């Protein structure tokens, strides 16, 4: 199926979850924030939220640091 990932059209396995999407892209879940259709998804739900055809997924790495 097709989804939008950070504004780009991407193919994604049918029935994919956020967790599987991240795993397929070698992204560590503890380092990113994920938004699906303008709603931020809590990390604990990444393996429960199934993506659908046409979903708009935003994936951002944390921006942080310290002195």
């Amino acid at each position: 199926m097709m989804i939008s990932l950070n504004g780009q059209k991407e193919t994604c396995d049918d029935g994919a979850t956020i967790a599987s999407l991240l795993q397929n892209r070698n992204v560590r879940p503890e380092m990113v924030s994920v938004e699906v259709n303008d709603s931020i998804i809590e990390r604990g739900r990444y393996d429960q939220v199934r993506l659908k055809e046409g979903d708009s997924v935003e994936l951002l790495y944390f921006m942080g640091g310290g002195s």
Partner: protein
Amino acid sequence: MEDGVEDEQPPGIEMGPESFREMVEHLRAHAPNEACGILAGRDGRVVRVYPMTNVEPTPYSYFMDPKEQFAVMKEMRKEGLSLVGIYHSHPCTTPYPSRKDRDLAFYPEAATVIVSFRDPGEPEARAYRIVEDRVTPIPIIVPGSPGRVGEKSEKLSAA
């Protein structure tokens, strides 16, 4: 040379005087806590400064509000801007990336800009590329300013 710093110097980032001043004044306004923001632009030139909310406001840490981060990144995409830099302050320490800064440098294409307020009257700005834990200093080019910020050791005035 500090640990992890390489000799090679990639291109710097260019900021107009107004953008530079906006960044420094935003950071100064939040002292003694750290503050942070995003520099957006084209071809390494900053055209927009996005002050961001630090959701871990202490003198020693920053963490951008993810909700704001999503909104800004989507706006940048809509306007055809790219991520040129990520800036934050070091209220009490040198303008050099900390261990935590290096661990959380997930955007190697973006400059890490740090402004130190060790001497509040003379903030000191420096920029770096951080790629796989390797830190390379790069200049901040502010047209109209003498020299290129970050090339020399003197401190900067935000005025």
